[in-house]
């Protein structure tokens, strides 16, 4: 149980009589990177706001490292660092002053910790400039630093790569990955960028219309259990499959043979194909793209 960094159970939220979040539950383990995927208006930010105590769920409980956010707010929040919808900083101060000020609100934030965070996000050169003149990406970087200075166990990031250049996105991804691996920090990232989530996350929650419609590891979610053979004579292959292995199969538009099989029998099937004199060009496992999955589960055209 103590590896459960975040436990969200059955939370709902209504704003102005409109139910925006409907009975969401999920958990996050130590060192895990969870992607929170959903179309615009799905309720990602609304959910994350409740996780960090900015708004109260109408029902349900949230606990962080075993502390209920409602009853034990201070202890729970001590474990959290976050960026919610954009890096909002005091623009009349320098980046450093911002970090100092926010750091002073947590216990034990040292000068060294601040400097370390600044180096991590690569802002050492501009840190003493006023935030007012920062570019969006620079603000995002300071935003990330501000979420890290107090060494939280849980990092909650709402669309953290907005405004970052490709280089920045790559760096950001590396930072998050290495944080999760080296310091065991758990990360919850909301995004509507599929590739980003796919590259960064161990697990994905897909949320649509305020409900979680998919929750699982990326590999599990994408695998279809189907194998694709590229053969010189796919019709013959199809025949072999049905006669020798009693398997239904079909041909796709490229004349490739596709069948859902138990992977244990794959070597046997391949051997049978070869002995039957077929030329086996390629064999691969058919995966859904995350995009397919995303579009299929969030099948909607208008924002609700």
């Amino acid at each position, binding site marked *: 149980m103590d590896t459960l960094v975040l436990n969200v159970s059955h939370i709902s939220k209504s704003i102005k009589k409109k139910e925006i979040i409907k009975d969401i539950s999920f958990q996050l383990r130590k060192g895990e990177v969870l992607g929170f995927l959903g179309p615009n208006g799905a309720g990602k930010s609304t959910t994350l706001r409740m996780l960090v105590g*900015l708004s*109260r769920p109408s029902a349900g409980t949230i606990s962080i490292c075993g502390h209920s956010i409602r009853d034990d707010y201070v*202890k729970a929040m001590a474990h959290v660092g976050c960026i919610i919808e954009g890096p*909002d900083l*005091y623009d*009349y101060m320098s980046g450093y002053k911002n970090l100092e000020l926010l750091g*002073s*609100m947590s216990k034990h934030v040292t000068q060294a910790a601040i400097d370390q965070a600044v180096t991590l996000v690569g802002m050492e050169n501009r840190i003493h400039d006023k935030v007012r003149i920062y570019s969006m990406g620079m603000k995002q970087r300071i935003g990330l630093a501000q979420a890290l200075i107090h060494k939280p166990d849980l990092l909650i990031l709402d669309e953290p790569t907005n405004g970052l250049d490709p280089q920045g996105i790559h760096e950001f991804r590396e930072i998050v990955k290495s944080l999760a691996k080296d310091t065991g920090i758990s990360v919850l990232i909301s995004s509507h960028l599929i590739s980003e989530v796919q590259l960064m996350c161990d697990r994905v929650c897909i949320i649509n219309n305020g409900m979680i419609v998919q929750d699982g590891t990326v590999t599990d979610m994408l695998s279809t259990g189907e194998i694709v053979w590229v053969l010189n004579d796919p019709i013959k292959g199809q025949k072999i499959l049905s006669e020798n292995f009693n398997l239904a199969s079909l041909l796709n538009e490229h004349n490739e043979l596709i069948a859902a099989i138990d992977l244990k029998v794959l070597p046997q099937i391949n051997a049978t194909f070869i002995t039957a004199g077929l030329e086996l060009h390629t064999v691969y496992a058919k995966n859904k793209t995350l995009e397919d999955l995303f579009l299929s589960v969030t099948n909607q055209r208008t924002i609700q």
Partner: protein
Amino acid sequence: MLILIRNEVTKLLLKKKLILIIGLLIIFITLLSYGQQYTYEKNIDRFENFSGAGTYDWKSLATQRLNDLENRLDSPYIPDSGIASTEIEIRQLRYFIENDINPITPSAVKFSVDFVEQGISLLIPLIIVILAADLVSGEFSTGTIKVLLTRAVPRWKILLSKLIALILMTTLVVLIIGILSVLISYLFFRQWGFNEPVATGFSLIDGQLNADSVILVTRFQYSLLIYSLTWYVSIVIAAITLLISILVENTATAIGVLMAALIGGQFLQFFLSDWAIVKFFFVTNLDLTRYLTGSYQPIGGMSLNFSIITLGLWGLLSLMIGFMVFNRKDVLV
């Protein structure tokens, strides 16, 4: 907690509010001192032309008055109630004659008292509004409320630190008003006037001015009293501004609401002074300093005590509502 307060003070200072306020004050005070100096010189000119003798002899007039008053004290028939105020007038006149100061000469301290007496119901509240209106709403409109409220600090502590920082800064602003008005007006008048005697302590009993407890204090002590009242008013305005700032999430709206309240309140007082409920409105009670000079009773039943208590209740109520709302508010920006 001290660190939180320091952070809030830092924010207030870095927003350069104070510089704006000081700039405004310098402009106002300079204009007003110049105006007062100008009027004074005009008056002296008129007196001189009028008396024809070339010089305006305030001293003989004052001496004449002093003799009269002294004779009056000697009278065995003078009613007791008159003695105190006569004695005070005599002492005031003596001071001016002995120090060779024309009582109508403007002095720096006198100006500074006049300035807050005039400003206490509008200018000073507005300055406090400038200082305080974006304290919470500003954090909402820039979104920084999110980084502020996602620290391991309970919300009430954050608001309390804002409140204390605001009280500290309001106090400083009152000091700055005092210092600036004394220094700038001194440049014009060349007269400090710290020791001038001032009569205070009037009270209104059954609609009659009562001078029994009138005492004579130096202008400096008097200005301390006036500034204390100004400070109290400022703190109450700060508390009310803080509430509005919490309620509206937008600085411009906050300033608008408060301006409307302040100016509308004056109208209310002007047009509806017969309507008893008007006296419970905070704007009606801002003019605390007038009670010290005695002649003031804007609406029947009002007194310094009444106004101080009414303002205090407004302040406390604002803070209570403010803390309640802030504590349970959903941050959806």
